[in-house]
């Protein structure tokens, strides 16, 4: 009788402690909001978007080129800050095989066009009207965020801060030189 009681007590204690540990674990993971972000080294998700000029651009068509995918908006001050550097890098490395895609998040064409004229942007500006590419596909949280995609379409670097010309240059150069 005593032996049996002892066993049922052990089981009770174990069940209760396991339940408590399970609850505690659930609380900890509940409070830790899951952050989904893109990882380096994976194939950059493919997409097709319309440009400001009414053309359509598909990422996979650009294989063989190094692609700088910049997600931005006109109302974002750091985006305005880095825009001249991006344009400068595009001018410098366009002929060496760099393609820049500026993905604008959810803005109207006039505003985007006015901005492109103001900053004299010559690279293609893609209109992501419903943020399907920027937010849904590339999981961008802060803007600007830039993705560096190598010639094989693999994501090599992610920059979620306003980039300097030097940073872009240093990141793009080795990708352009890679065979």
């Amino acid at each position, binding site marked *: 009788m005593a032996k049996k009681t002892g066993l049922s007590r052990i089981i009770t204690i174990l069940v209760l402690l396991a339940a408590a540990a399970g609850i505690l674990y659930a609380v900890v993971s509940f409070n830790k909001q899951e952050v989904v972000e893109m990882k380096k080294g994976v194939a950059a998700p493919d997409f097709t978007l319309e440009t400001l000029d009414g053309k359509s651009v598909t990422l996979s068509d650009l294989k063989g080129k190094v692609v700088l995918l910049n997600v931005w908006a006109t109302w974002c001050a750091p985006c305005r800050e880095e825009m001249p550097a991006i344009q400068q890098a595009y001018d410098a490395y366009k002929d060496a095989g760099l393609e820049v895609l500026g993905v604008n998040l959810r803005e109207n064409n006039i505003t985007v066009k006015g901005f492109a004229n*103001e900053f004299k942007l010559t690279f293609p500006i893609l209109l992501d009207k419903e943020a399907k590419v920027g937010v849904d596909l590339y999981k961008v949280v802060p803007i600007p965020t830039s993705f560096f995609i190598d010639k094989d379409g693999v994501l090599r670097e992610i920059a979620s801060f306003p980039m300097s010309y030097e940073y872009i240059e240093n990141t793009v150069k080795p990708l352009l030189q890679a065979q």
Partner: protein
Amino acid sequence: MNKKGKRNLFEWIWDWFASVKVGVSLIVIIAIAAAIGSIYPQVNAIPHPNPDFYYKDKYGNLGALYHKLGFSEMYISWWFLVLVLLLGISLVIVSIDRGVPLYKSLKNQPVARKVIGIRSDRLYAHKSEAQTSELDQLGTILQKRRYKIRREDGALLAEKGRFPRFGAYVIHLGLIIVILGVFARLVPGWYYDSMVWLKEDESKTIPEVGFTVKNAGFTLEYYENTDRVKKFETDVQVFEGDKQTAQKHLIVNDPLDYNNTLIFQNSFDPQPMYKSGKAVMIDKKTQSEVGTFEIDFNNPEETYAVGPYTLKLDNYFPDLKVDAEQGIYTNSRDAYNPGLLFSITGPGLEQASQQWMMPGAPFVEEMLGKEYPFTLRLKELEAFNMTGLLVHRDLGIPIVYTGCAVTMWGFVLVFYFQHRRIWARLEDGELHIGANTNKNWLGFVKEFNKVIEPLGLGPVELKGKLLKKSEPQPTE
């Protein structure tokens, strides 16, 4: 069952949790922690995104220390939760440790007690030259008083209110249910609490609750000639997929209850947004109207034809700001303060005349526009305010309420009901009647005397002191 000194780990754990001292200590520590946690608002309730700054700024050094020590996130801190869980385990183990033996002993209690035991009961009566018929009579009387009667040869046990003896364990059960109810929000989909901001006709899907909320119209009224808000109301619609499944005219404090989720009218954006407007173009020289055109502020046209003139929209800033460092820019993508830069071509203009239209900033426009050949003014405007709805779901709440009700029931059992037992034994022609209760002796004495009266007995008095030690003793 517990041999002192030779306990293994599990026995030690069991005894620790079963200890009343431990249980009370846990309750006291939790109560103190909970009280400390309510001195300043918790992090999730402060109106500032940066708690490090907020506590120092609002409550000074004490506030900063409070935040640094982690009291500002008390109720989700691991140690607070550990305390609550320990209390939960303690409640279960205490209930098993004490409740089960009590249940067993009451279930197995003998009907026939030894006469010497009955004699020493605090309430005792006896009758000599008694018959079995008198034992039967006693049984009948007690049965009428809703006692449960058990009989054996020459012995009787009458019992009333056994369950209230377990009142304390009912309280334990209630508290355990409350704890489970609080933790129930961890079940995916059981808890959601968030603001949803909706523009006019905008809808947002909330995957956590599985439906889409749409703002089908928002009204905002002020008291006349003041900026005090009179009322703000939203026509809200709920969609599952493409199908509308519910709708309600939401006013403050009257939520839509849909699928165990409450949708409250919570707030609104006091700054209106431009939606559309009819603009008029006036020739400054002649002060005559050239014509009108419609502007959609969310998606303006590239060109507008007004009379003989063509207005090309060179640039559009939905939320225009001017800054010495940054120049002219838009602060958001919402049309709070639109700025439109037109190039006007047409008769009498040798080259395109560029001019700003800023319906929300007439001073700036006037300053810039001294040389403008035209005046561009909004004649009619449709604006709207963004509505702020609170979507709240907590399926644990009914469980918490159930737990509270069970706890209350337990308290009622503990305070207002008694376990009364009466034993009778016929031995050698003498009838011995003894009685016991766990509280309210005064009431029980009255009942006992009523019960034995038909047998020609009593009234008897209670042996020993009626007053408890803690109560003031009468001076003699």
